[in-house]
């Protein structure tokens, strides 16, 4: 099922991810991270999650890059240079092992059914009900919006509260010196 576009996308993703942790200056790391976010947005769109792709492109590639850059402009020039120490052997061996263990742990979530798709736990509980009922119940063609704003409105409310709190906390921390 992997066509050339997906292969190219994965190679680009890995290249940018390695690039972010290998470059010497923080400003290049921020810009490469923006590229990574944008590629991730393409991946989400490719997988059919258009809403996630939209938010990733807007927040990951747009706003967070601006925030990172503004923070870097505040820092002194010598603080934005990085001196990388060589990676310890434990991390080189242990992290791939940890990744393997995690992949092994989620293997039961993807049973080898017909394409695996309908048998996944995520697809067997409420997903069908949402897809079939949400338009009739809410007159909202976009199921993601209906779930986010109506079925899971408490989640979204508290998420909005988290963002509000984050804004207040940033203002308190950063403005505490200006009397």
């Amino acid at each position, binding site marked *: 099922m992997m066509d050339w576009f997906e292969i190219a996308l994965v190679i680009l993703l890995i290249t940018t991810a390695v690039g972010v942790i290998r470059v010497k200056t923080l400003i290049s790391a921020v810009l490469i991270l923006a590229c990574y976010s944008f590629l991730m947005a393409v991946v989400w769109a490719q997988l059919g999650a258009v809403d996630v792709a939209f938010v990733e492109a807007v927040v990951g590639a747009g*706003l967070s890059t601006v925030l990172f850059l503004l923070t870097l*402009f505040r820092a002194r020039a010598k603080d934005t240079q990085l001196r990388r120490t060589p990676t310890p052997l434990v991390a080189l061996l242990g992290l791939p092992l940890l990744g393997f263990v995690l992949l092994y742990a989620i293997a039961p979530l993807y049973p080898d059914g017909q394409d695996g798709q309908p048998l996944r736990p995520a697809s067997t509980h409420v997903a069908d009900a949402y897809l079939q009922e949400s338009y*009739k119940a*809410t*007159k909202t063609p976009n199921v993601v919006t209906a779930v986010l704003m109506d079925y899971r409105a408490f989640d979204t409310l508290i998420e*909005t509260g988290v963002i509000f709190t984050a804004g207040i906390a940033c203002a308190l921390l950063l*403005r505490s010196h200006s009397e």
Partner: protein
Amino acid sequence: MIEAHDSLIVRSAGKLLIPLSQLFALYVLFFGQYGPGGGFAGGVILGTSFLLAVLVLGPQAPPCRLAHQLEHGDGIGLMIFVGVGGLCLIGGGTFLDYSNLQIPGWNDEERRSLGIVLTQIGVAADIAVTALSIVFSLGQHHSQEASHE
């Protein structure tokens, strides 16, 4: 740090792009019921369009003064969201159950649809103001430090 950009090209392009991106933000916000988008993406685009105004036109330009005014509205978005949830309580409904919004002549589906629109406006307002507030916090501190040095 934050002052008007020197280049005429950047300022002219900014004057063209800022209203366009604000219009696009509103489109994304209200199109969220019919396609990709919604409160989160629309709010971020609205916030960044004001940031663009601040970075390109400088702090004295009208859009930037408007942005500083908007900063005082921190929390209004959350209040809209909670307020819509609270309106659902009138007449014995449960919190955030939009079908209990008391609008005569509307059936449950239309009330839920309205509730989704209103809460999305709340989310967008909250996120746009928070983005502006964080960026102004970062910029303000820097200009203070620069004036000390």
